[in-house]
């Protein structure tokens, strides 16, 4: 009984800092976090990606893009929490595996999973510092699906596209990248298009 109590107490206190089981996603994040010393050795590239959305929500939603390295087959997430994320990657070709818009607040969790709705790809060369573009996701109102007098429910769709917003990047952020990498980011937008199987379902704007 005492043992059970001790174990319960251990779990309770650990509740705040209970170690999460290390996963492949955590390894990828550790590896992809920029390190100036590793970058200076020459075998890596730096990629900047931005994302924004106007999906109506009670709390902030941010994009999580899952890419696959075509050479190694490994997948990793780029979580664009503050509208912009800079990662250090190995040179090679990358393709989009998944696209989600997620939000979390006080234990509540929202996720919009776009799955393979979009095809996207980019390639990197060693020593490059590139800007991959801004993934803009807009809510698009669809058809009214049900109506009860003046009260109706309307379908909500969304459309995502990649735009070049490098010119609008904060000069301080651009300088920060240049300070740590020795190079200014250059625009090399990823190729982004609706997946053929979902193309017919895209809303007309």
């Amino acid at each position, binding site marked *: 009984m005492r043992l059970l109590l001790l174990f319960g107490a251990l779990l309770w206190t650990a509740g705040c800092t209970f170690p999460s089981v*290390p996963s492949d996603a955590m390894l990828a994040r550790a590896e992809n976090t920029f390190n100036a010393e590793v970058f200076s*050795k020459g075998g890596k590239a730096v990629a900047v990606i931005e994302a924004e959305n106007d999906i109506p929500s009670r709390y902030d939603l941010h994009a999580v893009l899952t890419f696959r390295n075509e050479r190694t087959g490994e997948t990793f997430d780029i979580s664009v929490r503050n509208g912009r994320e800079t990662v250090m990657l190995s040179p090679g070709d990358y393709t989009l595996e998944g696209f989600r818009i997620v939000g979390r607040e006080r234990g509540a969790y929202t996720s919009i999973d776009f799955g393979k709705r979009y095809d996207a790809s980019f390639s990197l060369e060693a020593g490059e510092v590139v800007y991959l573009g801004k993934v803009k996701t807009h809510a698009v109102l669809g058809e009214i699906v049900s109506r009860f007098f003046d009260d109706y429910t309307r379908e909500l769709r969304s459309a995502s596209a990649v735009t070049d917003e490098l010119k609008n990047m904060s000069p301080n952020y651009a300088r920060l990248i240049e300070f740590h990498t020795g190079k200014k980011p250059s625009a090399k937008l990823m190729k982004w298009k609706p997946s053929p199987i979902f193309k017919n379902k895209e809303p007309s704007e």
Partner: protein
Amino acid sequence: MKKLPLLLFVVLAAASCASVGTSAVSEPEEMRATLERERMTKAGVLLRYGEPNAVFNKDGKEIFEYKYVSVYNNPASYPFLIGLFFKANRYRTNYLYVAFDRDGSFVSADAVGVSGAYPPENVF
């Protein structure tokens, strides 16, 4: 008394680690010292450590990049209450770069190791 080892086992089982890369690079300085001492050729390095994680050219030299990335539980976060002051996980990313000249002779070996509380801090 017999239950104590069981409890210890449960606690130790919770201490997990995930890693990827060449295990020899878990001690990058040791590997670098070995390479510096033995000055192995490209073929020798391949034989002992296997295929590198990446190969690239820099300043006319061929560079083999070996990496070892690990994320593990921080034992400091286990103790009752005291553990609340520590991050639950730690990470380590080690790289070892071996440079060869055109005929595959050893030129230099360089180790880079980064570790800290997970998630790593991003300078950006």
